[in-house]
């Protein structure tokens, strides 16, 4: 029995983000008034009532937490166990994603990570983390 992955259902709000992932670009919402970024995309700025704009970021950050998951989400059985992590990007927001190219035991909270792109969603738009070095 192979369950398929939970499909990503884009909304008007998040469409620019998902469109950009197709070109392997990672966008954050930016509040120019507060000079703050946020992720996931929200309907309003967390920091002011200013309109939000999209900004591309490099996707570099710091490992905040990681876990080796033995109980897969739908569609992830073949990858199990797999590593999931929270990374705080240099711009501030924390992002949750799977980790590629690393062993769980070798990862250390505080180490530098970067976003890399995977092809498992079919069109190359799955964002993952990998150690930066």
């Amino acid at each position, binding site marked *: 029995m192979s369950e398929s992955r939970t499909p990503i259902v884009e909304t*008007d*709000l998040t469409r620019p983000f998902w469109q950009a992932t197709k070109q392997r670009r990672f966008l954050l919402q930016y509040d120019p008034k507060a000079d703050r970024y946020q992720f996931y995309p*929200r*309907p*309003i700025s*967390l920091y002011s*009532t200013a309109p939000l704009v999209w900004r591309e970021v490099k996707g570099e950050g710091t490992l905040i937490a990681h876990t080796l998951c033995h109980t897969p989400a739908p569609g992830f059985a073949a990858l199990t166990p797999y590593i999931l992590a929270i990374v705080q990007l240099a711009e501030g927001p924390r992002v949750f994603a799977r980790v590629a190219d690393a062993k769980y035991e070798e990862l250390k909270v505080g180490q530098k990570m970067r976003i890399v792109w995977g092809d498992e969603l079919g069109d190359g738009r799955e964002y993952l983390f990998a150690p930066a070095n």
Partner: protein
Amino acid sequence: MTMQWLQDREIAIVACADTKPVKRSGKTALELAGEVTDTLLRSAGIERDRIDGLAATPANSEAYNPFWTSMLADALGLSVGWSQVTDIGGASIIGNILRAGAAVHAGLCEMVLCIAADAPSTQFFAKQSGFRAEFCDPFGYSVLPLSFALLTSAYAARYGSPDRGLARLAVTQRNGALLNDRACDYLRVPLTEEDYLASRMISHPLRLLDCVMRCDGANAFLVTSSRMAREMGCAAPVHPIAYRECINFDPKNAVDDITLTGFTQAGPAALRDAGLAPADIQSFHPYDDFYIAILLQLEQIGFCRRGQASDFIREHNVGIGGDLPINTGGGQISAGQPGLANGGVNLIEAVRQLRGEAGPRQLAEASNAMVTGIGVIQYARNWGCSNVIILERGA
């Protein structure tokens, strides 16, 4: 049992906002909630950090999510000391105004965002369970109009057909919608009594033009203490001065007449609390999913005697400028029902009237208003929830 703090004008609604209801927005409830919160914060001129309470209603479009208020707080960036969802259908929004007031009164929080957003055209996940799934749907219960058709037939058998009163209401509310640019554009076309009477039967004796149309939308209200309202320099506070609620009226089927509802209790009790007679009410904003519901409310709250509502409507002027204006903005039936953000449509119209912000619909006398809510159909009888709030313009 008293809620003296209401009569003491301790609580104030200091701001309100809505999105224009549309039939197919293509948006999610979260996006609509974001828009309306944004508008509310701007119009109130306060920082988000001041909000420390959150009262929401469920959304048909998000019904599988049992953590909806937390999702809203996360998406809107609110951190609060009290939050809740009120799940009494169309009675939830005025219910939330009161729950927010009670939480402020009890010291749980000071500034509450009462918010409702739903996008049933984008996705619809609500699925009723229990007796509905087991003892109604399998036996041919299809849509809500069916329940109100049954009520109408019971009413007509007792008092005669109220068609002519309903026709007058339909035209009156539509006239309000024509003057209301916040009403759903789809509904803003003129209507005559003949149009109403000729509209097709949906569930005999209920006609198409008796029924509310579902759409997407959101509304929001900011509730705080009157002391805080003064400190904020709020120019037009609106005080809830009485409120009563009745859930699951007649649980034991002790009442013979299925047209009777909790309004027989909540209506007179709210008027008594406020120290007002029905004739003192300057505008009436009854919950309207179907026009027959307004007739029942007029009678059961005490504006007229049982069986007299149709005559009452024809003998009085219930339009703008009349002696008892009803649903001046079009009501839900002519402005649109934004899913489970429903009860907010008539409430926001009442608040706008009291704040003097009703534009071409502005009533000359608008120092008080009565707003009601109706929620959820019980098994083989009337609706389950009835609530009444009386609002007063602050000094």
